[in-house]
């Protein structure tokens, strides 16, 4: 796994750190969401883009 601030609770299972899970993002309507809402029900592929250029 690449370097990052993951919190490992088990040697074979990495979990998203609390700080990242609680990060607030906005949808295009301006609504705020915690990052962990995105994986509440289904797996999610999160693609972090460099910017929108």
């Amino acid at each position, binding site marked *: *796994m*690449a*370097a*990052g*601030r*993951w919190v490992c609770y088990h040697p074979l*299972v*990495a*979990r*998203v*750190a609390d*700080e*990242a*899970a609680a*990060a*607030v*993002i*906005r*949808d*295009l309507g*301006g609504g705020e*969401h915690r*990052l*962990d809402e*995105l*994986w*509440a*029900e*289904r*797996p*999610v*592929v*999160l*693609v*972090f*883009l*460099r*910017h*929108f*250029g």
Partner: protein
Amino acid sequence: MFCREQAVQVHRERDTIRERGADLVFIGNGNRHFAEAFQKQFDIQAPLYVDTKRDAYRALGMRRGTSDIINRSSLRNMVRSLRAGFRPGLIQGDGRQLGGVVVVRPGGQVSYSYLSSAGGDHPPVADILRAL
């Protein structure tokens, strides 16, 4: 240019991602007006969010810095991207921020992560699909 390339390449596999029971979400660090324009221009049929404070980027350990953007790897990736037909646009967000891809399962288990180490350093889409 790199963000366009990455978005288009992953977005092509959106149906496969859904068939495997997962969602595809894009996050950028520009404002939502930039995001809306980007979504329209590239016909992105997946949720797009903005993280203008870059809290999530920071918390996930994504790299940021001039030396991460201007280096030999980035130049090599630029040639690849240009050859693939992508062209640079205006920087709409933090131009020094690098991105990455993370696959997270309910409960927060990370089944895949790739943090870019240079401009245009993107994970193979096949690797992302294998994580689902």
